[in-house]
């Protein structure tokens, strides 16, 4: 049995942000994650937008955390070495009815404290702000401080910095049983049992199910499914700021934007479905294409390279707000649930809020003297200057071997990703850390190479290399036994 002061269940962006925040204190903290990598749930399948904060209803917790998150992101990005770009964003209107909505949205934004928010009524100025916006756009609410990130990169950086500061991450350990004995929680996974005083339940879509394992039944999570599309870097549009249509109560509607890597992402539909349904649906895909075509001028929607889907954890009967509070029935259990959109935008502020909540509830905090908030960003070969590339290859020749030709990812980067802490042990974990397989050939050329590097570096047979989850096998064994070199 392993003993901790505090255990976080769930290694999504919220769990990772909290882990990193708490790593500054003299507290023994662990994170239990059911999948083989962090950031594999809602965190890996969303638009990656640090939304401006105009959308949430004033007075809600998520309005507060969203706006505070926007303030915190630039500094977070610097400390943790992840890429963040302030792009600005526009919610675009096409007619007088839309204008009424935008006026309300502006009011919303001002009430939420969104800085420099502006209602643009001059179509010419709309095109000055974003030349690729639809020519039919007449009105827009402009949020200059909206930004973009790769959400899984943020979560991984937070996780790694937490580990550097003493937090333990246990991957591939789904919680199967929780008991409370003498004021201590005993949490069982298939591999071990963990004992702790405090639990933070950040288990995303399954936060309610995890709480029920501990006999806590205070809320329900339902899953709001969203289809997304990723387009080729060559799709007629470059550096597109996030463009939103007039939102619906369920979703911000089809948002189109350029990602940090230069692809265009179209995100996301909103349909209630079963938990863990991350299938793509044809009608959702069609809806996204129609939506993006309406918003963006010159987008070649035939250039889709990947369709995927995610689910947002929605706390039922909670006015679409986050559900972050101590359990009403079980002392020392804290809910971090219902983290739907803007979960990515709120993550740094959410961690700050959770820390204060813990303090208010008597969790003792004492600063670590040697806490290091700085996380060194991994080498991105394709971003280096020619001279730096040459120098790096001389130091380590594996940086001279291209594995993923579409995204210019070298063997050196892949090996480094595998040996970071925690290790990248799956093809998708390598992809999230290096972009190998994210390009237009979608790993057609590099998957076999990545599988072999994983096998070699981890010392496991190639047949044991997984795509993502524990049962996502790729290879069924040798064709002819005994002939492999």
């Amino acid at each position, binding site marked *: 049995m392993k003993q901790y002061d505090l255990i976080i269940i769930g290694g999504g962006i919220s769990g990772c942000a909290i882990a990193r925040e708490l790593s500054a204190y003299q507290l023994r903290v662990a994170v239990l994650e059911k999948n083989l990598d962090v950031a594999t749930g809602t965190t890996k399948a969303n638009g990656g937008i640090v939304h401006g904060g105009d959308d949430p209803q004033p007075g809600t917790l998520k309005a507060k955390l969203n706006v505070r998150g926007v303030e915190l992101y630039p500094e977070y990005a610097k400390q943790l070495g992840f890429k963040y770009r302030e792009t600005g964003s526009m919610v675009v209107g096409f007619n007088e009815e839309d204008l009424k909505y935008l006026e309300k949205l502006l009011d919303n934004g001002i009430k939420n404290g969104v800085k420099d928010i502006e209602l643009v009524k001059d179509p010419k100025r709309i095109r000055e702000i974003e030349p690729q916006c639809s020519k039919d756009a007449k009105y827009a609410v402009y949020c200059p401080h909206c930004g973009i990130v790769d959400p899984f990169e943020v979560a991984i950086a937070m996780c790694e910095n937490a580990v550097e500061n003493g937090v333990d991450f246990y991957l591939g350990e789904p919680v199967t049983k929780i008991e409370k004995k003498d004021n201590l929680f005993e949490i069982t996974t298939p591999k071990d049992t963990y004992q702790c005083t405090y639990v933070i339940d950040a288990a995303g879509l399954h936060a309610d199910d995890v709480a029920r394992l501990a006999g806590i039944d205070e809320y329900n999570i339902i899953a709001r499914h969203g289809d997304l599309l990723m387009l080729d870097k060559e799709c007629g549009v470059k550096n597109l700021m996030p463009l939103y249509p007039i939102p619906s109560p369920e979703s911000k509607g089809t948002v189109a934007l350029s990602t940090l890597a230069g692809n265009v992402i179209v995100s996301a539909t909103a349909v209630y479905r079963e938990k863990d349904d991350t299938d793509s649906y044809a009608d959702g895909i069609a809806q996204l294409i129609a939506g993006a075509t309406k918003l963006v001028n010159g987008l070649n929607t035939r250039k889709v390279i*990947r369709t995927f889907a995610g689910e947002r954890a929605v706390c039922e009967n909670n006015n679409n707000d986050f559900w972050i509070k101590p359990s009403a029935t079980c002392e020392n259990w804290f809910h971090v649930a219902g983290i739907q959109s803007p979960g990515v935008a709120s993550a740094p502020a959410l961690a700050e809020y959770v820390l204060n909540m813990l303090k208010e509830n008597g969790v003792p905090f004492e600063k670590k003297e040697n806490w290091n908030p700085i996380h060194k960003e991994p080498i991105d070969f394709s971003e280096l200057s020619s001279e730096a590339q040459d120098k790096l290859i001389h130091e380590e*020749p594996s940086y001279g071997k291209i594995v993923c030709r579409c995204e210019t990812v070298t063997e050196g980067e892949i090996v480094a990703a595998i040996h970071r802490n925690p290790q990248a042990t799956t093809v998708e974990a390598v992809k999230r850390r290096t972009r190998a397989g994210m390009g237009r050939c979608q790993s057609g050329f590099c998957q076999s190479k990545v599988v072999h590097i994983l096998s070699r570096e981890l010392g496991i047979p190639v047949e044991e290399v997984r795509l993502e989850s524990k*049962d996502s096998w*790729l290879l069924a064994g040798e*064709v002819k036994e005994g002939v492999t070199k």
Partner: protein
Amino acid sequence: MKTNYDVIVIGGGPAGMAAAIEADKKGAQVALVERNEELGGILNQCIHPGFGLKYFKEELTGPEYAQRLINELEKTKVEVFLSSMVLEINHLENGNHLVSFINEEGRLSLETKAIVLAMGCRERTRGEIKIPGARVAGVYTAGLAQRYINMDNLKPGTRFVILGSGDIGLIMARRLSLEGMKVEGVYELMPYANGLFRNIKNCLEDFGIPLHLSTTVTRVIGKDRVEAVEVTKVDENLQPIDGTQEIIPCDTLLLSIGLIPENEISSKAGVALNPATNGAIVDDNFETSVKGIFSCGNVLHVHDLADNVTQEAEKTGRNAASYALGETKEAEAKLQVSANFPIGYTVPSTTQKNQNASIYFRVRKPIEEAEMVITSGDKEIFRGKPRSYKPSIMECQMVPAKLLENATDEITLSLEMKESA
């Protein structure tokens, strides 16, 4: 180390090797840059026979075909850089080009008068045709599965459904069957097969593998690994017909749904591309829109035979060498070449009045009987015999210089359909 060349060839498959050999024969100083550890390109994983019938007049496997070219290349002075990935091409003020690549030695830049682009093509993916359903392991492009089996000696699955009747898919159906893996069927969206007739016969019929036309995969089913796919019949507009869905249990979906020239480096170098081929726009010398940069093989347009690739690349290699050695004559009178549907594209896009022209093209749908009609302005300058045309076959229309004498500044290829009785 030598850093100045007449011709640099990018890519060491059948196109790159043939171009390099011919450029060397013309007396040019040639370097060839290949990203893999060995020459041969995709031929190395094509261990089936059927190569070389046209070019070597005997039947060879892919690696044998590649070896013939490697042997030829070794007789030349061509400098070969293996495991070397070209990252960019820059243009110098003196009209030359700078090719920058990396390998385990570092980052290198070589100056050259001419470049031959011969990077080949890649496969279309699940994302491009937007197959709905689960994001699970077990969806492979046919070429990746071929690599796993033929190069790595690994089985990518046990029970397969193949979508697309392109040649790679058909060949993989046979390969999987021969190696004891089960192929449930090949499904094709179009009402006709896309691969060569001989492959339908040798790879499917001989192995009792059913080919389902006008049917496509509409959903991938599974939790972690493919557990089944849903297939649905499509109507004449290629739209799924509700009520015809069928669930086929399998653990692997192979995609053989088309090839796309890989022109990342070309477009970064400013080479204009033809949206109909995804390859460069070239003239009759296979020179692209950028002076001194040539293109041939599958990076120019997707061929069905390596033999054709080799022949096209030989011409291109000679032309690149002529250009580098200052032997190229300025074209006297350029003719724009265009084509009408159902001809999908032509290579080249321009030709010259004083020369015989070879115009390559593909049709977009099968034509039972049609006459090739070549016009210039409102004048008909050529009419071919009635015959059939298939999308799976790359055609070559020869036009003698004599006929082009009467042309204006353009020629247009059309197929005049015969009314079927």
